[in-house]
């Protein structure tokens, strides 16, 4: 018997992601990894995985997939979305499942994730994880480098993602409470490394402006639209390395925040860098939303990083067992299955 998730519709851009493959940027290898590593960790914790196990990262529009395993435990963490479990592939309606919880699904059932609301990302973890060979220590999909994940690309219809477990462990379901995943309207940055390519007035303009996340944004970078930033020494620099969260300003003057899949090196001046503690939040920011930048110091940035590390530790304490509601869901699913069985017989 196979144990797999069979992709029926892939969604807009669904990829396997973990915490990425740091350590090989000197070879030109992108780090990648989840845009929002906090949600990734929470999704894994809900199904009992190590926090850095590979999960499905959904952008904007979710996938639908068939469960081809005796049963499996899934969890959904991130933006709000309509998530349904259908009794079989030709069922029209299914049982709604809320996100921020784990749920058990059975062979033949179909999970359908709709459009995301109030956020760009949703993470779907499966207990035991995907049976995918890590590359350079990671199962993250690097689409540009064509490595990792499922065949080095976003999922397409017909993909069969093998699972490590053929059945979920017999236990109650969990949900997570009080985890704030609202996309930010303001993130903190440190100036540099190339803030000397901009006059003081232009740096002030950058901090005073509100930008809109543009339609060209993707896992490589968030293209901002708003008040253009002028360079005082041209917009070409000798290519140098790029850090996660770098805010580069190309010739158009419209800043680009470089995200997880950014290339390792680039040739535009970088006015500022988003601090590490605010990177998971900016990863949730959807196209069309507004964002502003606040300058901060290294001391504040490190304090924020320390606080984030504590907050991540706390996530486990926000996970609560949900025995009775789960029993109800299971009963309803069973009912739903039986009813559609009757329908099928009649057809």
């Amino acid at each position, binding site marked *: 018997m196979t144990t797999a998730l069979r992709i029926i519709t892939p969604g807009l851009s669904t990829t396997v992601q973990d915490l990425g493959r740091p350590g090989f940027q000197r070879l030109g290898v992108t780090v990648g990894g989840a845009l929002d590593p906090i949600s990734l960790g929470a999704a894994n914790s809900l199904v009992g995985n190590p926090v850095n196990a590979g999960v499905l990262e959904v952008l904007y529009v979710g996938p639908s997939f068939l469960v081809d395993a005796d049963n499996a435990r899934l969890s959904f963490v991130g933006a709000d979305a309509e998530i349904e479990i259908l009794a079989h592939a030709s069922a029209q309606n299914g049982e709604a499942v809320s996100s921020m919880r784990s749920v058990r699904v059975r062979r033949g059932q179909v999970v359908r994730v709709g459009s995301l609301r109030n956020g760009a990302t949703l993470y779907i973890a499966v207990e035991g994880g995907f049976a995918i060979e890590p590359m350079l220590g990671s199962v993250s999909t690097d689409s540009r480098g064509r490595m990792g994940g499922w065949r080095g690309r976003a999922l397409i219809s017909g993909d069969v993602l093998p699972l490590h477990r053929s059945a979920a462990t017999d236990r109650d379901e969990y949900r997570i409470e009080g985890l704030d995943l609202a996309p930010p309207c303001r993130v903190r940055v440190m100036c540099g490394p190339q803030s000397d390519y901009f006059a003081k007035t232009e740096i002030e303009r950058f901090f005073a402006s509100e930008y809109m996340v543009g339609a060209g944004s993707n896992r490589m970078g968030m293209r901002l639209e708003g008040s253009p930033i002028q360079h005082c020494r041209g917009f070409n620099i000798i290519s140098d*390395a790029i850090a996660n969260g770098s805010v580069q300003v190309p010739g158009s003057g419209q800043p680009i925040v470089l995200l997880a899949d950014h290339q390792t090196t680039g040739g535009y001046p970088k006015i500022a*860098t988003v601090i590490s503690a605010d990177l998971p939040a900016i990863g949730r920011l959807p196209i069309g939303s507004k964002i502003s930048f606040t300058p901060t110091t290294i001391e504040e940035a490190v304090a924020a990083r320390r606080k984030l590390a504590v907050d991540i530790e706390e996530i486990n304490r926000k996970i609560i067992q949900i025995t009775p509601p789960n029993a109800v869901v299971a009963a309803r699913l069973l009912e739903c299955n039986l009813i559609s069985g009757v329908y099928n017989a009649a057809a």
Partner: protein
Amino acid sequence: MLEYRVLPAGDTALVVEFGDRIDQKLNAAVLALSHGLDAAQIPGITETIPTFRSLMVHYEPLELTASALVGQIEKQMHNLNTSASVGHVWHLPVCYDPDVAIDLDDVARRTSLTVQQVVERHSAPTYHVYMLGFLPGQAYMGEVAPELSLDRLENPRTQIPAGSLAIASAMSCVFPLETPCGWHVIGRCPIPLWDHGRATALLAPGDKVRFIPVSIREFETLTTGVSQGALRLEPISEFVGAAA
């Protein structure tokens, strides 16, 4: 001691910058500092990324403060030995046949040279590998002869094949994977610069490269040899310090 400045790149990386130009001496300093920091195995440094004229140092600020890291960099700079690095000399076969060199005629036109002259001038120098970046295993090699120096294409191509040899300004690159590209494609290299299976790069910063022109038939033979696993390119020689 070489002049340098340290620039913040957020709270988990900083940039050690040696100047504002593409220069082999500056690049040697970048590589020497990179080797020095790697060899020192300083707890808290997670990754160093050498580029043309600067080194990015990634660190864990909860383990190593920025000021302590700057102190470690100062210490390395006092003892910097730019002549101790080991490199390899490579002879890379390249096919300049118009069948695989889509921009060769255009480059000849833009530079007012014949196709033959473009090939001769491009394959004459020994190139220095400044850095790897953009794609896995992609080496930036310089310098291209001044008469071949061209700005990037006005309209970048959405896709060029893996192995494409292309030029822009003073640099030559062999693009290891199929990729969008705004450079001028003047040839194709049958030797993979990135080994997907073993996740290794053929070239390293500091290496020296000569391009050896091969015919389209030789190119096809080499491509077949590589795909059958029968062919693996070895360096011509190893050197310490500045290469011949």
